[in-house]
């Protein structure tokens, strides 16, 4: 599936819910499907700066596609990073670099884009894209 298709799939899933509680519960549920980072990669260097909670991300490239693993000590944050990784996982670096992330507004997580918390989500997207840029350079 392309990034766009996965985003649409996620939007369809979230459209089923009427209120924020259900959306949050689903997000927490999605956190459980996050490809977990290996303990050895839970280092200070792999922590995304600017989040109130800790988020670790690790990236590897196989067959010109990036595989992300991550974890967080807060479960809502874990749900957020799980959604982002579901969108970007096993995609070509260029696709990730060029992807827009407007779907976030559509699934009712807009408040996570506002300052302070927001820093969290914005920093996460930025960090995933940074990995993509780095691997893109490697391919070229």
């Amino acid at each position, binding site marked *: 599936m392309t990034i766009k298709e996965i985003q649409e799939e996620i939007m369809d899933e979230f459209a089923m819910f009427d209120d*924020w*509680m259900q959306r*949050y*519960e689903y997000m*927490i549920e999605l956190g459980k499907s996050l490809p977990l980072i290996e303990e050895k990669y839970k280092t200070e260097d792999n922590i995304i700066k600017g989040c*109130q*909670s*800790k988020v670790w991300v690790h990236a590897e490239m196989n067959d010109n596609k990036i595989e992300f693993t991550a974890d967080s*000590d*807060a*479960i*809502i*944050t874990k749900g957020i990073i799980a959604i982002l990784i579901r969108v970007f996982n096993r995609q070509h670096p260029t696709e990730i670099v060029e992807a827009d992330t407007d779907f976030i507004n559509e699934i009712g997580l807009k408040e996570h884009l506002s300052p302070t*918390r927001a820093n969290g989500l914005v920093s996460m997207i930025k960090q995933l894209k940074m990995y993509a840029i780095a691997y893109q350079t490697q391919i070229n």
Partner: protein
Amino acid sequence: MLDVHKIRKDFPILDRQVNGKPLVYFDNAATSQTPQVVIDAIVDYYSNYNANIHRGVHTLSQEATDAYEIARKKIQTHFNTKHTHEVILTSGTTHSINIIATGFTNLLSKGDEVIVSALEHHSNIVPWQMLCERTGAILKVIPMNEEGELVMDVFDTLLSDKTKLVFTNHISNALGTINPIKEIIDKAHKVGAAVLIDGAQSCPHIKPDVQELDVDFYVASAHKLCGPTGVGMLYGKEEWLNKLPPYQGGGEMIELVTFEKTTYAGLPHKFEAGTPNICGGIAFGVALDYMNSIGFDTIAAYENDLLAYGTEKLLEIEGLKIYGTSKNKTSVISFNLDNIHPYDVGSIVDKLGIAVRTGHHCAQPIMDFYKIPGTIRASFSFYNTKEEIDALVDAVKKAKMMLS
């Protein structure tokens, strides 16, 4: 007795909704809400007599100058400073602390010691660390115990003739502990050290008498006590303020300027370079009037009642732990739920219209002491109600249900 329903009518913001729910504002330790009288004073200033002060001869400038200096008088009366010129208007507590920390640069030498408490906000740690870096002075720390109180026995052992400065907050922002500042001041004075007390968290609850405390410096922000942001005060004993150099150069703080030499203005203007926050200063005075009209004893009694109620109700939730359990504390409850991250709880509680603070509260050393990433902090003010505390308790229960 405080009539909370009448008081709530003074605060227009308390009528608004957040996420479709009535706002419950429990982030008072970060900033207090603003009563209509203060909002009116701000509107009145910009509508009727906005002008630069202390130099114009025109009517507007004189009216603005008078209002600003009346505000200074009100601050003097409120804090009971000996002289009006011992009140310096600043942009807030952080600015006030930096004036003193910078001013001591030439008064400290290598090997001198300064003492800070373990309960400080970063703004009462970092400026002094920078001072130590400039001078080679050594920073010592009064430790805290599990209850969130300062260990005063250790403080005794830290004091010596090398101690030049002691700085601590009156009340901890993260835990609400009321520190024994009179004891700290008296003991520090015995070894000849000066004392700065950060009153940012105490001024909304307590009316400090700086002469009775015999404190050398006392600092506070208007926005914690119903005033606007961007304005605060620095009280310093006259002899200290005369001894310290100016913090910033500019207009207002000079007596005579030539390219060869400038002589500085006297107090308080020596520390007030540039056009100040005129409107803010005036509104600060109005905020003090407002709080005094309710009365600080009445406020403290009411808030203590909220604290007792909130503590009891929150502790009924299984797995909830309160950090900061001193008998001497103000209406701040810092807590966590089992092993749930405070950020998770804060996110859910916000969705239910309740404003609490989550995180390390700019006091990372305290969080390190408890080995936690942060807490959820509910801080109550005299305009809060027990019904609002019930709403918080329900919200925390809901968060626990969703997150466990």
